[in-house]
């Protein structure tokens, strides 16, 4: 089945220790997104890639970076995690950005990040 996969599902890191979260997709979608969802809050977009073009949200902290080495994979790097970065990180994909029928976003299972 075509899908969005996130690894690991649970990640524990120490305060200030860099961490990388991984997302892969078998849908061959052009767009990949990273959302942060803190406890009891709605998801919030951090950034997205349209093909190789990176689009950062204005309020995404510099501590968060992303890489997309190919169509299938996208990584979220947190350079120096703080306690406030503990959250569920959701990866999503959409086919494209130019037609209504291509907009729907498909979410992965998420990675729950704990910062100790």
């Amino acid at each position, binding site marked *: 089945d075509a899908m969005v996969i996130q690894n690991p599902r649970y990640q524990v890191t120490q305060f200030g220790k860099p961490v990388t979260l991984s997302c892969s997709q078998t849908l061959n979608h052009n767009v990949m997104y990273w*959302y942060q969802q803190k406890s009891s809050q*709605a998801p919030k977009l951090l950034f*997205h890639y349209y093909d190789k073009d990176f689009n950062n949200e204005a309020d995404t902290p510099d501590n968060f970076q992303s890489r997309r080495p190919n169509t299938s994979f996208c990584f979220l790097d947190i350079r120096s995690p703080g306690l406030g970065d503990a959250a569920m990180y959701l990866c999503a994909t959409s086919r494209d*950005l130019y037609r*209504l029928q291509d907009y729907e*976003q498909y979410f992965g299972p998420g990675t729950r990040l704990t910062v100790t």
Partner: protein
Amino acid sequence: ELKVEQNPLFLSMQEGKNYTIYCNYSTTSDRLYWYRQDPGKSLESLFVLLSNGAVKQEGRLMASLDTKARLSTLHITAAVHDLSATYFCAMSMEYGNKLVFGAGTILRVKS
């Protein structure tokens, strides 16, 4: 700036009862989505509403969109315990397809 407001934020209902969750948004957009989220899990897509007057139904859930009123509703008919979850509405911004979510409605269906 697009703002999406949901109400109620918490809904406790008895099995067999009907209720409606409301989603208001601030600017015109023709893409509205409803998601379900179980505790500790990811988002499950329920409905995609793309035009004024769109109505979609799946089981005990029915969603509608009124773009003139900037309102979407999620109607629950004869609730059952399995519907207990958090429900989000979301709209996407024109550029970049960024999803802006409402705060979510926590639904608890009591036996």
